[in-house]
């Protein structure tokens, strides 16, 4: 028990500290690296909750793909971050004011937090008994049965995103020599190799 609590506090503290560093680090590359640290610790928290599938997905998708993509973008785009930060102090009062107003509004909302009385009965989560099925299997069973429509719809949205990216950016270039695999395979020994008998000491 105590180990679990210790682990929780360690992951949580590091995650929050890394989160703070993401927005306060001077060098954007460092920010992205701190972001990766935050993701790893969040994955640790998921493991503690028994959601190992989500933890692995977080590491693979967010650390493996998204964060690395960020890193590439940050390194490739030549953005002058010092210049972007100029005017920060100038906008601080008005930004701070809006922040305070939002905070007060949020407090009001939380003060009036009364969940509709019926909500408890309604929100019976379609959950499986986790002692019987593994995490991944439980998610899969829900995703491919109850939520199949939404799953497929999300797939269609991604397909349209792909088509859109191709439509808007792909420009066919003329004069590019392409590898033609069938032509290469069709070549025979007779048309590509010629054997010459070379007599010694004579040359061709």
């Amino acid at each position, binding site marked *: 028990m105590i180990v679990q609590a210790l682990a929780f506090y360690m992951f949580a503290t590091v995650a929050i500290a890394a989160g703070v560093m993401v927005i306060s680090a001077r060098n954007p590359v460092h920010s992205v690296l701190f972001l990766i640290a935050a993701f790893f610790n969040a994955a640790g928290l998921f493991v503690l909750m028994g959601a190992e599938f989500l933890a692995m997905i977080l590491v693979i998708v967010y650390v493996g793909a998204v964060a690395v993509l960020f890193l590439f973008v940050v390194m490739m785009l030549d953005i002058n971050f010092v210049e972007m930060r100029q005017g920060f102090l100038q906008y601080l009062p008005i930004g701070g004011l809006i922040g305070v107003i939002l905070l007060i509004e949020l407090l009001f909302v939380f003060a009036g937090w009364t969940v509709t009385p019926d909500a408890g009965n309604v929100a019976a989560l379609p959950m499986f008994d986790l002692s019987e099925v593994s995490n991944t299997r439980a998610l899969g069973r829900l995703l491919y049965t109850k939520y199949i429509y939404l799953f497929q719809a*999300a797939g269609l949205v991604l397909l349209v995103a792909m088509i859109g990216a191709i439509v808007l950016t792909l420009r066919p270039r003329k004069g590019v020599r392409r590898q033609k695999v069938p032509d290469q395979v069709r070549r025979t020994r007779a048309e590509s190799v010629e054997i010459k008998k070379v007599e010694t000491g004579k040359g061709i």
Partner: protein
Amino acid sequence: MLSWDFLALQPALPEVFLALSTMALLMLGVFRGDGHTRILSWFAVLVLGLTLLLVLDGIGGTQRAFGGIFIVDAFAQYMKVLALIGSSFAVVMSLGYIEREKIARFEYPILFLFATLGMMMMISANDLIALYLGLELQSLSLYVIAAFRRDSTRSTEAGLKYFVLGALSSGMLLYGASMVYGFAGTTGFDRLAAVLDAGAAPVGLIVGLVFVVSGLAFKVAAVPFHMWTPDVYEGAPTPVTAFFAVAPKVAAMALFVRVMIDPFGALITQWQQIIVFISIASMVLAAFAAIDQRNIKRLMAYSSIGHVGYMLIGLAVGTEEGISGLIIYLTIYVFMNVGTFACILCMRSHGRMVEGIDDLAGLGRTNAPMAAVLTAFMFSMTGIPPVAGFFGKFFIFRAAINAEMYTLAVIGVLSSVVAAFYYLRIVKVMYFDEPAERFDRPIGREMSLILVGTGLFIVFFFPFISPLLTGAGVAARSLFVG
């Protein structure tokens, strides 16, 4: 534990068919290349027509699928038919245009089909998540189509502007939906309705509702979320603008009505005042802002904002009569706009598209048939009897009067008088000004057919009134019975 109920696809058959055929056509396009865009477009129209038949063939009564996420009722059927008709018209109207402007790429009809699929999913959404996914499928396709002429700065600007503002509105919608979920504990419309009928709604839920309304108001382009409309309408290729003005409006309006009436019907006192405000603001702003427009596409953008204002009167009333009025108005709006945009697409001189209102000068003398048809559409937009537009306004205003919302009706009538100025100015320019340059002819067989068809529908509207009334009545009733 596993049940096979989720495989009961029957109610969603049209959507499944449309999705599968779209992907089949996509494969065809990928392997055959851009040279086959025309034939692919005709295939797209065929697919839309078959989907329309499947929708009409649907089983009567209210049906749910996928565990209640997806709903088919008379309202959904009616709106899907309307959206499919609008999309088919838009695809047909694009045929000549994309070839002339050299943007005929095979993805063009495919994206139209995907957008239509998104619309059908929006119309049938019975859950906040399904609503959002349908909306995104539709919007994402529209962003790409808006920027389809990628070598033109205005088109890409339109696409980018639409994308950024659309993403913002989706964000608002999602924020609202998450608050609704947080306070009500469910995203399903049926369960939301049950929860809200049972007891008073907490403040947080109403805050969420306001955000959802804002997001939806953006999608139908109602004031104060209308800023993107004129720029996007002006910048996008003209047939795309025609599509924007017709089909997505139908879908977004249907979604708006369903969300307000079905899950949040019990909160009508809360959302009624918001809708009343949006409606009045849209009517008034559109009437005054359009006066100064010189570009006919911008004018049509403001005109569509105004029409949305009139339709929202029907929603603000919140009764069966109001919704039925809205449905009739929407039907007339679709045909009226298809016709008007067909006219705009014929405004070409020396092989170039012209978009100024002054370019129409003297059309009554240089091209009498087109001028006559356009006059009919302008009369209809104004709402002059006996053309169709009058009846649309009539049923909407009658619903408002019967519900004793006199202010709304009076402001509606007054703003339509102001709007008459800029619609009738077009008629004046066509008949009384000195002729400008002639437009290129011939305009093509498809265009003539669309012009004649929609024109006849608008002018000789009398025989259509009673079937439309019956259809709209059945559709509206299905919403209230649940």
